[in-house]
């Protein structure tokens, strides 16, 4: 701790920080642009100038940039000094020279950091009366709009996009006052994290194109704290609604999970909520005709379903409450997993490991702290994108270490990068194909799945003899494997990542590695991050009895052992083979499906009950690390959709349901801790979802009725559908949209953090659900060598796409604009021997699936990487090996033009 004096007041500060960080951490207002809490300082904008004094006798002082000056003990500065103030206002004057002043038509208006800082700096009148510099804008794809004239050249966009997120197609061009931030030519921004530009840019250069199409001011959006349902990371979001439609999603800070950033799936994959296809009425089908059901009829039907003969199939994309309500309705024995049997099996392994004292499941922030990482088999960018962004930060720990050695403060961003050059903490990737993280990888092995599994066991064995080794087909990688083992052993915080996208064996190998490390280091749990595909895969997994696989449910139906079926928010045709599902559904006497959108499963239902989407109900989900998080309702669904749990349980208050889940479901004891405490009501008033500036309320439906409607009542939640009430200014759990006096933009978040980049004041970051046992489990045995491929057969591995592999986001137009067809990736050799060229269509033998061929140089010969597209192929249909044959039919509908791969075979090289 150090003591510094700011405007005569002494503060205790962290000397490793800079003065700007400390001023903000102390709650003081000091304007800035180029600095960003996650990206450190570069000193470009000169906005954070303060007066620094040598000692108490120094009356003149000198201007310094707070962001570039360490908060070392004894520092004396003044923010309020007239010289500093006038300099700061002159900086704004400079920035405004060519700014178009188009706030009224600018999407950033009202949440614009430039507006805030302009006000704060006190620059009021324009003196510049000469010509402004103007720029041409670029088309940047379906997500982001570009308006370069608003640019104030803070360099944040390129620093974020290139340095932080590893993008390659955005740069600063030209120089002096003509600097330009864009692509080298027009085209889609390729980074999976491009959407954060909207929030990183302090003004309106990069704006949310999806939002623009249906725009509303920040203060006119009804907002609540929510959780992204795009994948198992569970990033915290703040969706905004107006006129009953969901308009946008922005980041909501959670220091342990997503911090300041989301991925593009999470940000742009929400408009299925507004889809015209939405199921909004409860219907019953009789002789092919759909009839609207009354509330009474529904109650009767639900009653009929609550018999021992009913099977309930849960859902990894539905909340704990909905899964639990279904389980209660059908009984524990009749409640089955809503995922493929293979996936469920691996889920079981993951849940078992979660209790093992040898491991720790790291949060996203903890992942950033890893100083040696091994990824075993997962394509992290396409499975759990936000974690890929965290891994890009983890490799920088080496740079930070070097900086410490050279006594360069870690926040000196450019200097630290310069010092470290290409030095990175080790990140090794073993996977069936090239991945988007390869540019930061130190060691790279591409091989077939069986070999990867064997390699994993070999690494474990190299770390500790107690782990059984495995034989692999080749010894070509022995040195690399030894090196990886060494790196992990040497690391202070090693991290192993695996997941169940290609079965459970890789998970076991990964666990062995972590266990070996734990044995050697005698550490507390080794970071073992196991990825699962969906938002509540773990929650569902915890609620289902291990024996209750989907296959068993389908078999019971087919055998006639069960007669009725309730399917919770699930398309069974993605989970088991069509033959199995058809056979089961055929036999079922009555089928009830709850969902948001029509699927092949709802098409077979006798009763369809419309379920609310993530933004329309309160719910808890459990993310990949076992963190339970509460997602509030943003707005009431104005049609007849209800939360699934409400259809299944008409009477119980949500809080009671949660409480009952705590009491009854194994592993859920702590769930109720995510609920806001009663003491967060101020004077009995609720927290408003609408801002105090929410406008037009009296006129919103004036075209229908001139009387202002009564505000909707929410008796389930601590939040109200209203602007009245007391905003929860300092409580993270119910902080929907951060705002503080003078701070209208997202930068206001620092007012709620206990220090810059720190935890939010009060509240919690979610509740970790897993109880650790005190014991360490045994090592897994490597699998017995599986079958070898017959001639012409290829080892199958599944590939994924951030835009397309997730069911709900794939039904959103902006995401669809980035999707590609299903494809099978093969090596040039395999293509040649089968006479295939780029873009050919092939049939996968034994199925009637046609897919496009994608020839990739970064795939092992003998392996086929199959991306199933948006539901066009059913992964359950394929076995360990596949054969492909050229077919004349064209399969493509979306085409492959959106495919962003670094290893696509080049026509130049192939000829």
């Amino acid at each position, binding site marked *: 701790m150090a003591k510094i004096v700011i405007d005569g007041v002494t503060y205790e500060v962290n000397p490793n920080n800079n003065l700007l960080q400390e001023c903000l951490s102390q709650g003081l207002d000091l304007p800035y642009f180029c600095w960003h809490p996650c990206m450190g300082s*570069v*000193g*470009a*904008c*000169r*906005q954070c*100038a303060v007066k620094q004094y040598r000692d108490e006798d120094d009356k003149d002082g*000198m*201007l*310094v940039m707070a962001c*570039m000056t360490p908060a070392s003990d004894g520092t004396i500065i003044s923010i309020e000094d007239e010289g500093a103030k006038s*300099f700061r206002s*002159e*900086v704004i004057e*400079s*920035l405004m*020279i*060519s700014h178009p002043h188009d706030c009224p038509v600018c999407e950033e208006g009202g949440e614009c950091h430039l507006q805030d800082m302009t006000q704060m700096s006190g620059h009021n009148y324009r*003196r*510049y009366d*000469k*010509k402004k*510099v103007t720029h041409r804008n670029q088309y940047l794809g379906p997500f982001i709009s570009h308006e370069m004239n608003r640019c*104030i*050249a803070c*360099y944040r966009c390129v620093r974020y996009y290139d340095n932080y997120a590893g993008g390659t197609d955005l740069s*600063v061009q*030209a*120089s*002096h*006052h*003509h*600097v330009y931030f864009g692509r080298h030519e027009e085209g889609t921004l390729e980074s999976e994290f491009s959407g954060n530009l909207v929030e990183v840019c302090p003004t309106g250069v990069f704006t949310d194109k999806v939002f623009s199409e249906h725009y509303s001011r920040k203060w006119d959006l009804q907002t609540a704290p929510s959780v992204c349902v795009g994948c198992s990371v569970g990033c915290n979001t703040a969706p905004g609604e107006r006129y009953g439609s969901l308009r946008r999603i922005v980041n909501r800070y959670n220091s342990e999970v997503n911090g300041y950033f989301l991925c593009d799936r999470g940000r742009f994959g929400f408009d299925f909520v507004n889809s015209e296809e939405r199921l909004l009425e409860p219907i019953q089908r009789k002789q092919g005709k759909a009839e609207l059901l009354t509330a009474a009829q529904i109650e009767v039907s639900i009653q009929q379903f609550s018999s021992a003969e009913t099977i309930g199939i849960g859902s990894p994309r539905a909340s704990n409450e909905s899964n639990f309500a279904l389980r209660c309705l059908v009984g524990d024995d009749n409640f089955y997993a809503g995922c493929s049997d293979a996936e469920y099996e691996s889920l079981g392994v993951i849940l078992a490991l979660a209790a093992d004292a040898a491991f720790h499941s790291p949060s996203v922030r903890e992942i950033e702290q890893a100083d040696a990482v091994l990824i075993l088999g997962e394509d992290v960018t396409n499975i759990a994108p936000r974690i890929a962004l965290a891994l890009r930060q983890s490799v920088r720990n080496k740079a930070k270490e070097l900086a410490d050695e*050279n006594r*360069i403060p870690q926040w*000196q961003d*450019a*200097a630290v990068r*310069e*010092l*470290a*050059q290409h030095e990175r903490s080790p990140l090794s990737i073993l996977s069936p194909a090239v991945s988007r993280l390869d540019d930061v990888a130190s060691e790279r092995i591409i091989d077939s799945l069986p070999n990867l599994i064997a390699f994993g066991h070999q690494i474990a064995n190299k770390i500790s003899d107690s782990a059984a080794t495995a034989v692999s087909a080749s010894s070509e990688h022995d040195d690399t494997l030894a090196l990886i083992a060494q790196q992990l052993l040497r690391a202070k915080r090693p991290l192993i990542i695996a997941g169940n996208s290609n079965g459970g064996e890789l998970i076991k190998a990964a666990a062995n590695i972590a266990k070996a490390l734990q044995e050697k280091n005698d550490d507390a749990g080794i970071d073992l991050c196991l990825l699962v595909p969906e938002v509540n895969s773990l929650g569902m997994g915890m609620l289902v009895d291990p024996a209750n696989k989907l296959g068993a449910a389908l078999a019971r139906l087919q055998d006639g052992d069960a007669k009725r079926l309730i399917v919770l928010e699930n398309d069974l045709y993605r989970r088991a083979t069509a033959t199995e599902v058809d056979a089961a559904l055929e036999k079922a006497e009555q089928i009830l499906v709850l969902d948001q959108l029509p699927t092949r499963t709802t098409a077979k239902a006798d009763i369809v009950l419309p379920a609310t989407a993530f933004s329309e109900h309160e719910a808890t989900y459990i993310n990949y690390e076992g963190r339970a998080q509460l997602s509030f309702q943003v707005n009431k669904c104005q049609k007849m959709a209800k939360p699934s749990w409400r259809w299944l349980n008409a009477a119980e208050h949500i809080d009671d349901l949660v409480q009952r889940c705590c009491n009854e479901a194994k592993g859920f004891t702590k769930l109720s801790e995510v609920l806001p405490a009663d003491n967060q009501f101020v004077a009995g008033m609720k927290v408003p979802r609408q801002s105090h500036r929410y406008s037009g309320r009296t006129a919103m439906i004036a075209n229908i009725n001139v009387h202002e409607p009564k505000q909707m009542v929410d008796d389930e939640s601590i939040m109200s559908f209203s602007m009245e009430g007391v905003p929860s200014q300092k409580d993270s759990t119910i902080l929907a949209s951060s705002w503080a006096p003078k701070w209208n933009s997202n930068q206001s978040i620092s007012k709620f953090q206990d220090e810059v980049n720190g935890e939010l004041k009060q509240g919690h970051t979610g509740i970790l659900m897993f109880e650790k046992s005190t014991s360490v489990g045994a090592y897994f045995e490597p699998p017995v060598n599986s079958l070898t491929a017959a001639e012409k057969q290829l080892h199958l591995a599944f590939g994924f796409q951030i835009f397309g592999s997730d069911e709900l986001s794939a039904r959103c137009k902006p995401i669809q604009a980035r999707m590609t067809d299903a494809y099978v990736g093969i090596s040039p050799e395999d293509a040649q021997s089968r006479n295939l060229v780029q873009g050919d269509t092939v049939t996968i033998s034994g199925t009637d699936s046609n897919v496009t061929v994608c020839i990739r140089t970064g795939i092992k010969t003998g392996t086929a990487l199959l991306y199933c597209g948006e539901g066009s192929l059913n992964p359950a249909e394929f076995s360990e090996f596949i054969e492909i044959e050229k077919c004349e039919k064209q399969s493509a509908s979306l085409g492959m033009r959106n495919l962003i791969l670094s290893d696509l075979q080049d026509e130049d090289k192939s000829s």
Partner: protein
Amino acid sequence: MVTKPLTKNIDMSRPPLDIAAYEANEGYRSLHAIAKGLNPEDVLQLVKDSGLKGRGGAGFPTGLKWSFVPMGENSPTQKYLVVNADEMEPGTFKDRLLMEGDPHLLIEGMIIAAYTIQASKAYIFLRGEYTVSEQVLRKAIKQAKEKGYLGKNILGTGFDLDIIMHTSAGRYICGEETALLNALEGKRANPRAKPPFPQVSGLWGKPTIVNNVETICNLPGILSYGVDWYHGLTNGNDHGTKLFGVSGKVKTPGCWELPLGLPIRELLENYAGGMQDGLELRGFLPGGGSTDFMLPEHLDITLDYDEIAKVGSRLATGTMIILDDKTCPVGMVGNLMKFFAHESCGFCTPCRDGLPWVDEIFREFEGGRGTEKDLQVLHDHVTYLGPGRTFCALAPGATAPLGSGLKHFKEDFDRHVKDQRCSYKH
């Protein structure tokens, strides 16, 4: 006794000396001293004792700068020497003379500097437009290599050195030492934050010293003839000789090697031949485009770093630009402002957006449209762009002629506003 160590070999009417002729005239003597056992610490001490100050503009003591380079076992093995030959400051024309006139002197100096910090690689960052210097230097480097003065195990000392010629793709800011490093690394030439200084983390993050051509050219003399000789070259406070240039409407503009401490009047009258007929001296920039105007009343001040600083200007590059009474001071400052505005790298706000405004105002003045309000803006920018406020020294450099120009030639500025025309134009 050698009195003109920098230019003794230079005669621009013939090609520069080749290596044999250079050696015949006591060239590369310093290398033999090194071969005989002068170790890096000794050289560093000599350079410190000589009192040599950087000739690139800032006048920072060279020995002191070198002493910040981490040496010894735990220091990074790769270190770099970079010669700043980017000469682009308006009115500066001295390094070109040295490189075109006596390339081996620079090479010898580089070997000394590199040896001192044990840098095995040295880059010459040469202004791209200096095509003759490039040819001459390339040829000389080749000769030195053939002679064994460059390459592996130089003269049996175990010291290796390669000199690599880098021609700049052009920008004044590349002369700023940290921007130069970025340019060498193939990046946009934005300056870097200091600290960390290049001596600690420079080129590719390795310890690096950057020195001006002329600074380096001082080294062979210091090693060959000793510190006492070096001190004996001058009478004033500063040591050694320096290249001084005069441009503008004088009778015989040119560049001469003279001892530091010479009165300005002597340079102007004895060497530059005084003002052209019919013209009076109005003022002058003593050391290139980013120094403050001095006035005829300052002619008796000596060309000495401290003396010139006392009257609010800087010796800087020592190349003087003369303003005569028939040339418009507003136009002259305007010309400089156009230069600085264009050469801003675009990184920090005041410089990037402030200088173009200043530039535009000068264009208004030129077009007879300048206003009182514009004048106020100019005055404001003198402080706004001053030292400590911008990221590097480019913009403060621009405020030197701007601020001093506004002060010393106030009546000219006022007249432009009042008359709405430039009275120097006919």
